[in-house]
């Protein structure tokens, strides 16, 4: 279980969120939503252990995420940022990148399994050998979401996973997240997409310091 308890964070003069508490159980898809600048992405970064809270704690299965434990916790996480743009020439290099990490070597990359995941997200196999420059932002994001299906780690954090997608593909992504959740993954997505958030198990709304 991922738990955020009494979390408060101020950036500069702006109170992003105050005394925020919520929990996400295994198998749940949660959407963090709110206006631009309300701290959605910042909350995601705090869960990833990239920055400390002013107050409160974030814990996974009762263990608190802090500067000492962040790297250990991130081994159990998958992260797909917004408008992902990795400096690779080919899609093949890009999707294989996470599998080169020492902590991810428990999963051997398999082209066939990758293509199975791609089919679920309506991605054509012909993209695999193509140049990254020829692939759209939405397609890149779906490719890296598909990578999460192979890595199959306990927590998936994603920022605006459907911002570059039409409604059809956005629903495919939600369905994909539900499939990951059904296998025990906690999915936390930042999104201002109302269609996306309406299909999630829980919506956490950040409202400029008032949660």
């Amino acid at each position, binding site marked *: 279980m991922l738990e955020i308890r009494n979390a408060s964070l101020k950036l500069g003069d702006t109170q992003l969120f105050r005394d925020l508490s919520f929990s996400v159980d295994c198998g749940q898809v949660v959407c963090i939503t709110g206006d631009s600048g309300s701290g959605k992405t910042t909350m995601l970064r705090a869960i990833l252990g990239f*920055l*400390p809270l002013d107050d409160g704690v974030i814990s996974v299965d009762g263990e608190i995420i802090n*500067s000492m434990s962040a790297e250990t916790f*991130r081994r159990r996480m998958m992260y797909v940022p917004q408008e992902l743009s990795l400096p690779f020439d080919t899609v093949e290099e890009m999707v294989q990148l996470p599998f080169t990490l020492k902590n991810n070597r428990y999963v051997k990359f398999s082209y066939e399994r990758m293509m199975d995941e791609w089919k679920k997200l309506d991605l054509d196999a012909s993209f695999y050998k193509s140049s990254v420059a020829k692939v759209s932002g939405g397609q890149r994001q779906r490719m890296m979401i598909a990578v999460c299906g192979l890595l199959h780690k306990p927590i998936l954090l994603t920022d605006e996973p459907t911002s570059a997608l039409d409604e059809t593909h956005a629903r495919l992504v939600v369905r994909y997240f539900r499939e990951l959740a059904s296998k025990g993954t906690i999915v936390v997505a930042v999104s201002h997409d109302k269609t996306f958030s309406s299909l999630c198990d829980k919506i956490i709304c950040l409202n400029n310091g008032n949660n």
Partner: protein
Amino acid sequence: MGTIDISLWSLVIGLLLLAFPIYFFRLYKVKLVVSTLVAALRMVIQLFFIGLYLKYLFIWNNPWINLLWVIIMVIVASFTATHRTGIKRSVLFIPVSVGFLATAMVVGLYFLLFVLHLDNPFSAQYFIPIMGILMGNMLSVNVIAVNTYFGDLQREHQMYYYLLGNGATRFEATAPFVRQAMMKAFSPCVANMAVMGIVSLPGTMIGQILGGSAPGIAIKYQMMIIIITFTASMLSLMITIILSSRYSFDEYGKLRNIMRKHK
């Protein structure tokens, strides 16, 4: 046969050759005439001073003074390196200084003790020029590599956070940037090594031959100088990157604002 000395009058005759590039600068209205003349004048003055104090360093031949000279060179090189990058001095100065000093001493003494088999590795005749050549090469390679490493980290920070967020260690998350920095900084060195002696005769060899050494000895020194400068450049860069991580990332692995503000 010893080295032929160049008199002051002969130096002036040699400097007159600058008239050719200056003529073409003026012909094409290239705004480098004044800076060339100033640079040449500075070079003459600086080298005269260097010649003067090297003369006394060689006369005294005191290991502590020689070591002090190396430390002064390290400090000047470190200031120069940090000035030429866009990075805050508070982030880079100590790592660069430690990298330069430690590497120059380790690689330099390795060469002097185990390759040249000198009884006194701090002898000015060998210690000073070897340390000087190591310092010069480390400086130029480090500036290119450090600029590339930190510049790419700032620009492609999404890649860094993506890797961290998917379970990478700090080493793995920074590895692509270190890789790119090494490619940019060392590719010219490797290319230069490959054509050494074919495209041009390198400086150390020329200096030695002009000084009266047999070509057979000069080429061996040249080979070794290339190897030790290449090795020292790599080691000093690694020390700089490892030590500067303390100042460039916070305890959460987040990149700090390390760029110097330009006026």
